């Protein structure tokens, strides 16, 4: 079974995000980067699928040269080889999906495992768009995945509960947090990953025009929340709800 799994290098979501004074982006000086959390679940699931069915795991990232680090982490966890589609531009989800579509056409995997969204921009679009560009079936927000006889059975987290979907392979599956517990890249894994191959391409090599179709006009921080208050009486509460919170 051939599995493609995707990883994105994102700013560490546990750090405080600062917006540039002119609102054109976020401040990246001194910011730590890591693999998108949801992608870790995709990589882990790929490794488990390979353990069960055998085959090969190809890990793909679209991004700057530094994204080789996230690819190496996936290789250290157990993926077999990497592909970096290198670009220094900030791509929108649509451009990423079009780039990935070309890679998938070349690799022709049985299944593509992705994170359901990336924790930096939280757009939740790339997987769905990729499925559309390829004409593949999709099953998003997976918390359970079983593959047999050319079909994937996917338990999905949906509003108000869960649902089960069967999709014919090749298909796109995006991972939610309950799918598995991602392993740590072990030290022997890190050492082995050094010898695994990473191919480099550019969007141009793949014939993809990455001009963004969605443009960001301005970044703004949400208003900071005022501190909570403790009131002495119900009357005071009602008064404050009326005058300060303007909720009544």
């Amino acid at each position, binding site marked *: 079974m051939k599995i493609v799994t995707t990883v994105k290098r994102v700013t560490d979501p546990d750090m405080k995000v600062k917006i540039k004074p002119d609102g054109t982006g976020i401040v990246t000086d001194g910011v730590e980067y*890591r693999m998108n959390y949801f992608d870790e679940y995709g990589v882990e699931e790929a490794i488990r699928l390979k353990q069960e069915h055998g085959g090969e795991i190809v890990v793909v990232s679209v991004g700057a040269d*530094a994204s080789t*680090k996230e690819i*190496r*982490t996936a290789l*250290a966890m157990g993926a077999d080889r990497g592909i970096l589609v290198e670009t220094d531009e900030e791509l929108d989800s649509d451009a990423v999906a079009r780039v990935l579509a070309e890679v998938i056409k070349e690799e022709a995997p049985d299944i593509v495992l992705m994170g359901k969204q990336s924790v930096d921009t939280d757009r939740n679009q790339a997987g769905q768009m990729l499925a559309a560009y390829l004409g593949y079936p999709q099953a998003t927000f997976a918390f359970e995945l079983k593959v047999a006889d050319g079909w994937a059975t996917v338990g999905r987290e949906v509003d108000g509960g869960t649902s089960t979907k069967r999709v014919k392979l090749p298909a796109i599956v995006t991972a939610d947090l309950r799918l598995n517990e991602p*392993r*740590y*890249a*072990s*030290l*022997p*894994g*890190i*050492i082995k*990953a*050094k010898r695994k191959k990473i191919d480099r391409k550019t969007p141009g090599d793949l014939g993809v025009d990455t001009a963004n179709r969605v443009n960001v006009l301005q970044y703004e921080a949400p208003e900071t929340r005022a501190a909570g208050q403790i009131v002495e009486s119900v009357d005071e509460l009602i008064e404050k709800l009326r005058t300060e919170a303007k909720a009544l």
Partner: protein
Amino acid sequence: MADFFNPTEEHKQLREMVRSFAEREVAPQAEEHDRAERFNVDLFRRLGSELGLLGVTVPLEFGGSGMDATAAVIVHEELAAADPGFCLAYLAHSMLFVNNLAVNGNDDQRQRILPGACDGTLIGGMCMSEPNAGTDVLAMGTVAREDGDHFVLDGQKMWITNGAISDSELGDVFLVYAKQEERSSRALSLFLVEKGTPGFSLGQKIHNKLGMRASTTAELVFDGVRVPKENLVSAPGGAVKSMMRNLAIERVTLAAMSLGIARRSIEIMNDYARDRAAFGQPLNRFGQIQRHIAESYAEYMAGRAYTYQVASQLSLDAFGNRLDSDGVKLYCSTMGKNVADRAIQVLGGYGYVGEYQVERLWRDAKLLEIGGGTIEAHHKNMTRDLSGLDKLL
């Protein structure tokens, strides 16, 4: 991508892996195990079975990861930032036992013991100190007498980290230093002693330690313990050299633990001083608080630069690094304690209680001025080594 503290991409990935494990798995259990004076054996075994960290410096062929002193420093720095007590157990196993055997043992011994010690099946320690001999190590009284194809060990060892893994259970395997033939001898030999050997027993698990309570410390008793000759490590009477070799990496990694303690203490005091207000402004607007934070950071970075510089020059099978391996531990141990102390001061009353961690870091930091050589021992060694020099290059 590489930098002074992460000289290769693998070092950087190693640091990130250990940090995320430390934050997610080690930090949350630290307070509980400190309070209960309990060693978290299950978590410890995962360092081997899941992460491959227990044999960080061991050649691949014996089940290790084949990395260098800098990698060992990275692991200790990151683990100690989460839980110094747990990290001390790691150090006693991976540096004092595993690395010691990897460097000083023969192939038979390494093949027999190291794979299990690297995957976490066996938990080991090193026995040098005794009730009546610490700094003055050559005053030790444990003696090994030759008897046919065995050596017979008699004596007691004190303060042995991982000597017990619970209140009543011995650790699995130890490297034990003993006098060759008689007490008055100055020649030491080194032996592998395994749990279950008749006459080898747990004297007591030591309770009520000030800090490092998440690691166990024990007194071990050797009463006519017959050790087969194949368990003699390196030449009979030649163990002082082995000891010196291993003390260098021990001290550098102990220094790394102080770096982890300092980093965590600085993060905590920095956060707190930003958020806590007094007299209408954040604490970090006050000059005295600024001094605590800024001096701590500068001293931490100085210690860090010194430690990584020494680690980068340290080859694990050489000896003769004593001046600087003592030097980094001398500087960093007191630095770590002072930084933790300032963190308590910046947090005021909140710093004095468990919830904010710094009181535990401070208690743990103190051990590093004692274990692996007291700071006075470092003064003595360093001055002796320096006295032979005319100019510093």
